[in-house]
């Protein structure tokens, strides 16, 4: 089966930088499956996510979408790509436009991808808000009227409103309190299960990774040091860096 998204021997060097930010990275995610990119700040997680989103071009290697190389110049392909691959960011306080009502925020992908007009979007927006567990009257309110967890639900509604196949999530719950975190993790799990959504998640929170992703790739200084089934990677880590990450997770006293 062709993976939906694939990085093949990818390297990226920022302009003016002496070394590659990421190097020799190969990973693939198949439709309906989930992959986590794990590592500490500066490991290159977000750089890989930018590559997967088509926001940066690799210096070497290829980014493939449905088996075809992603070329930002090919507008037809990019339109298909943007319809299929959507993103949720870490900080729900800065990722929503504070001056627009939730209805307009959530309808944005429909409008910018030319899928629907403002009027045609309304039922889809309502359905998306319902799917993420927000009340219908949320549409008429502004982002500041919502808590952090609710804002992240709005961001997820926006990302899923156009019916994408893949959701890329950059630390989707690390800005949230622990009780809220559990609820948003549950929501993402439900979307995976019920919509068959493919999930690629960047996180340094191993318990969230273990809750949501079937496969895990561990990044250290721009290279993948270990990848495989999450149970394998986190249960029986082969690389010392992975072991160190797991041992560092603070635990409740028994």
């Amino acid at each position, binding site marked *: 089966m062709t993976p939906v998204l694939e990085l093949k021997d990818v390297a990226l060097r920022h302009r003016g930088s002496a070394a590659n930010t990421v190097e020799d990275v190969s990973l693939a995610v198949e439709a309906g499956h989930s992959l986590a990119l794990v590592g500490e700040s500066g490991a290159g997680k977000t750089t890989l996510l930018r590559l997967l989103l088509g926001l940066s071009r690799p210096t070497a290697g290829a980014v493939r979408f449905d088996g075809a190389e992603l070329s930002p110049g090919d507008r037809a392909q990019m339109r298909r790509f943007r319809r299929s691959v959507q993103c949720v960011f870490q900080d729900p306080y800065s990722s929503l436009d504070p001056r627009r009502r939730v209805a307009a925020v959530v309808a944005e992908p429909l409008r910018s991808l030319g899928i629907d007009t403002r009027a045609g979007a309304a039922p889809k927006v309502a359905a998306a808000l319902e799917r993420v567990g927000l009340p219908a009257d949320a549409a008429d309110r502004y982002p500041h009227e919502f808590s952090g967890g609710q804002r992240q639900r709005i961001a997820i509604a926006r990302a899923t409103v156009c019916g994408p196949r893949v959701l890329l999530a950059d630390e989707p719950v690390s800005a949230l309190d*622990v009780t809220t*975190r559990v609820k948003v993790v549950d929501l993402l799990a439900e979307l995976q299960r019920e919509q068959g959504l493919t999930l690629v998640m960047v996180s340094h929170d191993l318990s969230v990774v*273990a809750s949501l992703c079937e496969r895990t790739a561990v990044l250290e200084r721009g290279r993948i040091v270990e990848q495989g089934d999450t*149970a394998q990677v986190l249960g029986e880590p082969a690389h010392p860096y992975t072991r160190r990450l797991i041992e560092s997770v603070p635990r409740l006293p028994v």
Partner: protein
Amino acid sequence: MTLLDVRGLTVRTGDGRTLVDDLSFSVASGERLGLIGESGSGKSLTTLAVLGLLPDGMSATGSVELAGTQIVGAREKQLTAVRGRDAAVVFQEPLTALDPLMRVGRQVAEPLGRRTGLKGAALREAVGEALAQVRLPEPERIARAYPHEISGGQRQRVALALALACAPRLLIADEPTTALDVSVQAEMLDLIDALVREREMAVLFVSHDLAVVARVTDRALVLKDGRAVEEGTVHDLVRAPRAPYTRDLVASARTLESALDLRSPR
């Protein structure tokens, strides 16, 4: 001996909303207390009130006695004498806590020089020692660096060195590891634990993360919507939470943790 005694602390905004409601707790010399709560629970405001640092427009009533000084209603001059010497604070985000335009060494030298009266080469040496104490590698290089030139974990160590420079009797740590990576966080918690033990300092440790609080303190107070809902040893809070909110908090933490356990047969 009671070092910090908070009685009926209430913090209100200018328009009359109550953000911290009739809060009472105390910390003895050398004791460690955790304040646990989620965003909006009033835990950070409580730490600010303890130092008389509430933002403009907010007012505190009740009593906060820090090493015998009444903080509520105190004049700025009295507060200046208390801050740093009796209690010093490490904030969550080291990038905003440090002055971006000043080399790290000078920032540490300021409180250190004021306390010890050292100058010149002797002060420079003391700064090097202060940075070495928080286990910073190459203290001379770090001292010459600007905050943006060092990593997040290193910045938080500098912030800790700054707080310790005045040899406070109470260290207030407000989510000191939330902005850090997990392995850096583990190192930082061990460091705080070791330094505080050496100096027999008292700690008020604020966090939303029960597991993190458990690493540093034995006793904790759970806050919700500005009120204390439960107080006890961390052990009891985790094992037999009484308040529904604490139960909720523990259950959420357990749920996330169990995901890790199912898959790791340790």
